[in-house]
Structures are given as structure tokens and as C-alpha cells.
């Protein structure tokens, strides 16, 4: 068994192969110098904690104990499907019976001239270390893109006292996947914490002279920063699969079992698109920690012949300042929303399809105020339940009671 990509997905897949009792060789290939690690802390704890510790998914001892061979700092450069071989950047080759592509995604590049060494992206632990070095009270940071990575970084930067401006070209932050009502709560939290958030304005020019970055906005306003972080989305890493003749459709195209058209090649996590069963097989690609974990585990199962379809409901979260946002399902599936207010200003929006089926739930609040109800909503979504809107909207009706119905 060979796994290309040693992130959350690849790491979980390798461990799951052993959990399921597979005792043949397992090789995990990663292009980073680190052990498989969790990426969510990179925009948060890796910035704000006293020492930037890497949160490893598996220690060297555990990998050794479970006989998982981890080849680091090496890229896979080609797949020879006929010969069942993967060629690596160090000139060596690996033979496989089953191959898992867990190549992940990389930050979308800002297609503009003028970017220099002070315009950076965040994907890896090493990227995080470089950004962390700049997050000081005397520094001004421009965050290009009001998505999760940018906003979480903005919150971390404010915590460390830096001057922060978030620049979003769309009319509001978090346009993709987050309802406006919730985005507004987050927007206000950033302003209350002293971050500047500018929306609805594209960037017309960037000049990075090596000491500072000057950004010109559509209305002529100029933002001067000591450095800029670009967070405008991610693109799946598919070149290896494409060159091997596998189909690409917004990611490496796999079936519900995460298998490509080649029965011996699987793909999972950020790099793949797959039919989402809960929405009738709508093809999606998810960039989320839990999806990477679940698909890594499912791919491992199917590499061993289980033939099990992905059935999970998408779920993701974001932490900014004291607020946590959690979303179960994809809110764009909804046609109407019902709001449920919880204690401490927390609230949940339930998204219902035309026929009344619960398709998604988005919640925000301090700490973990929405966690339990979002988890219950996720179960209701998985059951394809059609709960009464009045029950969803009333805090006195326990969601758990709807699950039993």
C-alpha cells in the first residue's frame, strides 16, 4: 500500500490500514520534512502559543511501532499505472498494489504582478513559522481575502497586537459557504477587536519593495503594510493524477467509494471530487479537516476491499477570538432558513430544502455554545429528516427529541 501525501488524510489512511489489521507494507510519502501533522492550528495556536509546536498525527515511535514507512521531503513525480510503480523525486521508485492519492491542496495564487518576498501564503508549518515571525505589535499586516484562513490569521495577529487590515473583493466576508447573518457576526467581532475589514473592493495594484507592501484598492485607497498574507482559496493538487491519465473534475474525480477509474488508485481529502450521497450524488470537493480524516479512513477501508460508500455529512468549524462557528451540511442546498437563538447570543440557522428536508445548519456563538446542536443537526441531515420549522426555531424543543421522531 502506497500513500502519496502525508497530511491529515494520508496519515489517517496509513494508521487505519493498520487498525483494520492489514499487515503488508505501508509507505507514506510526503514532501514536507515533518511527521504527518494537523493543519488547523497553523492559523491559530501555531501563531499565538508561546512556542510554535507542531501537532503531529503520529509520532516517530508510533509509526515505527505500526511499521509505517514514512518517506519525507520527497515528492512523487510520476505514476506508472501499467507497472504499478510510483517514481519519486529522489530517483527511487515504489511498487504498489493499491495507491492512495492524498495530495491535498495548495493556496490559490494571486494572479498579479508586484508580489515579492513580503507577500506570503499559509499552507504548511514552515509557512506558519515565517508568518509568525512577523506578527508583532509594531507590524502592520494586510490580509488579502476574507475567508477562513485570512480571518483566523487576522484574529491571531490582533491577539499579538499587530495592526490588521482584511481586504475582501466580494461584497462581504465568507461569501462561500457561510450565511450572511453569521458572516456579519464575525465581521463585527473583527471590528470590535480592532481589525479593519474592507469589503467589496478589488485590489488594483500591489508593490512589494522588500521592506513594505503597498496595496492600492479599487477606490484609490492605499493600504501600507509590513507584510501581506494572501488567503484567496485553495486549488487541488492534481498534476500527478492528470499526467497518469486519471480524470480531473475540480479535483481528482473518484466515485462514492473514493476509487478512480483505475480500480487500484484511490484519492481522498482536499485533492478529490466525489459524489456526496446526502445530496443525491452532487459532485463536490471539500477542503476540511474532518473530511480529510474521514475520507482517509474510508479510502484505507476500501483499499482493503470493503467497497463502502462515503456517507458523511460535510462539517467544518472556525475559531476566531472567542467565537466558534460550526457548519454541518452545505448551506447552498437550502431554500429557506429557520433561526434558533441559544444562550449568550449564540444562534443556529437551519437550512431547509423546498420539500422541508433539513439540509444544513450553521451556528455561531462563544466557546462551544453551538456544538451540541450542530452535531444533532448533522445527524438529522444524515437521516434526511424533515423536522417541523417551529420545533427547530424553539429553544425549548430539544433537538435530540426530533432525532427520535
Amino acid at each position: 500500500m502506497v500513500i502519496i501525501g502525508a497530511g491529515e488524510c494520508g496519515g489517517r489512511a496509513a494508521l487505519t490500514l493498520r487498525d483494520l489489521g492489514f499487515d503488508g507494507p505501508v509507505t507514506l510519502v510526503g514532501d514536507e520534512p515533518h511527521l504527518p501533522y494537523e493543519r488547523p492550528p497553523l492559523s491559530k495556536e501555531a501563531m499565538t502559543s508561546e512556542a510554535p509546536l507542531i501537532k503531529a498525527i503520529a509520532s516517530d515511535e508510533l509509526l515505527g511501532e505500526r511499521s509505517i514507512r514514512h518517506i519525507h521531503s520527497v515528492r512523487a513525480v510520476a505514476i506508472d499505472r501499467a507497472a504499478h510503480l510510483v517514481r519519486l523525486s529522489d530517483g527511487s521508485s515504489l511498487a504498489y498494489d493499491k495507491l492512495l492519492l492524498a495530495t491535498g491542496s495548495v493556496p490559490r495564487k494571486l494572479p498579479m504582478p508586484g508580489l515579492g518576498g513580503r507577500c506570503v501564503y499559509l499552507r504548511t508549518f514552515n509557512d506558519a513559522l515565517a508568518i509568525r515571525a512577523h506578527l508583532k505589535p509594531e507590524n502592520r499586516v494586510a490580509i488579502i481575502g476574507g475567508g477562513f484562513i485570512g480571518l483566523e490569521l487576522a484574529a491571531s495577529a490582533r491577539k499579538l497586537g499587530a495592526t490588521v487590515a482584511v481586504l475582501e473583493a466580494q461584497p462581504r466576508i465568507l461569501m462561500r459557504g457561510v450565511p450572511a447573518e453569521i458572516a456579519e457576526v464575525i465581521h463585527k467581532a473583527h471590528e470590535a477587536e480592532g481589525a479593519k475589514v474592507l469589503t467589496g473592493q478589488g485590489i488594483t495594484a500591489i508593490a512589494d519593495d522588500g521592506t513594505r507592501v503597498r496595496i492600492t484598492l479599487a477606490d484609490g485607497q492605499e493600504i501600507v503594510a509590513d507584510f501581506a498574507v494572501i488567503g484567496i482559496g485553495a486549488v487541488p493538487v492534481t498534476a500527478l493524477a492528470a499526467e497518469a491519465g486519471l480524470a480531473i473534475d475540480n479535483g481528482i474525480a473518484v466515485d462514492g467509494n473514493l476509487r478512480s477509474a483505475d480500480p487500484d488508485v484511490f484519492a481522498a481529502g482536499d485533492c478529490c471530487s466525489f459524489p456526496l450521497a446526502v445530496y443525491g450524488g452532487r459532485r463536490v470537493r471539500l477542503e476540511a479537516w474532518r473530511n480529510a480524516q474521514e475520507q482517509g479512513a474510508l479510502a484505507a477501508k476500501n483499499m482493503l476491499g470493503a467497497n463502502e460508500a462515503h456517507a458523511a455529512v460535510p462539517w467544518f468549524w472556525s475559531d476566531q477570538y472567542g467565537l466558534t462557528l460550526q457548519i454541518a451540511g452545505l448551506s447552498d442546498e437550502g431554500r429557506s432558513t429557520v433561526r434558533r437563538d441559544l444562550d449568550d447570543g449564540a444562534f443556529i440557522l437551519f437550512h431547509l430544502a423546498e420539500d422541508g428536508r433539513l439540509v444544513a445548519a450553521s451556528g455561531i456563538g462563544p466557546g462551544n455554545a453551538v456544538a451540541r446542536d450542530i452535531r444533532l443537526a448533522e445527524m438529522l441531515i444524515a437521516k434526511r429528516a424533515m423536522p417541523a420549522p417551529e420545533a427547530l426555531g424553539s429553544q425549548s424543543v430539544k433537538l435530540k427529541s426530533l432525532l427520535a421522531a
Partner: protein
Amino acid sequence: MSDWVEACAAGDIDEEDVMRFDHAGRTYAIYRSPEDEYFATDGLCSHEKVHLADGLVMDDIIECPKHNGRFNYKTGDARGAPVCVNLKTYPVKVDAGKVLIQVG
């Protein structure tokens, strides 16, 4: 050495639910099972030190509110990624309508 401490009244926790209990600088989670029995574990998830009392109880499982790490709250056993370290459990008894846990 090992003291029994009053945590709450038996009726303070719904069936199939959990409550946080802080005592002497430590935090615990007290559970009432669907079978109306009481259990106690360490209050923080072994993955990222999140209060489990904000999580969801289903049957004999508590799920961490942050990343859905699962534990059997009766035994403390971790039930799969991302958690791999078991929770410590504590003896519990109900006496005259009070839930007592044996700490330390």
C-alpha cells in the same frame, strides 16, 4: 486520601446528558446514562483540552464538542480519531438524591 465529593443533585442532569463539575482546581464531567446510572470522567478531552460537558451524549458515548473525538464515558476508552488517549474515570454513587464522586 480518596474523598467522596458532592457534585450535584441527581435531578440536575437529564438522562443521556452530561454536566461539568469543578473541584479543587480540577474539572470533571458527570454523566447520567439512558439507563439512569451516573458516571464521571476527567472533564477535558485528551485531544485539545476542551470541556466535554459541552459535547453530546448518545448511549454510552460522549463526543467532544470541538472535533468529535469519542469516548465511552463508562470506561473512559477513546473510540477512534482524533483521540487516542483514554479518559480517566472516577467512581460515582448516588446518596439521598445527591451525586457523589470519588476524586483523587
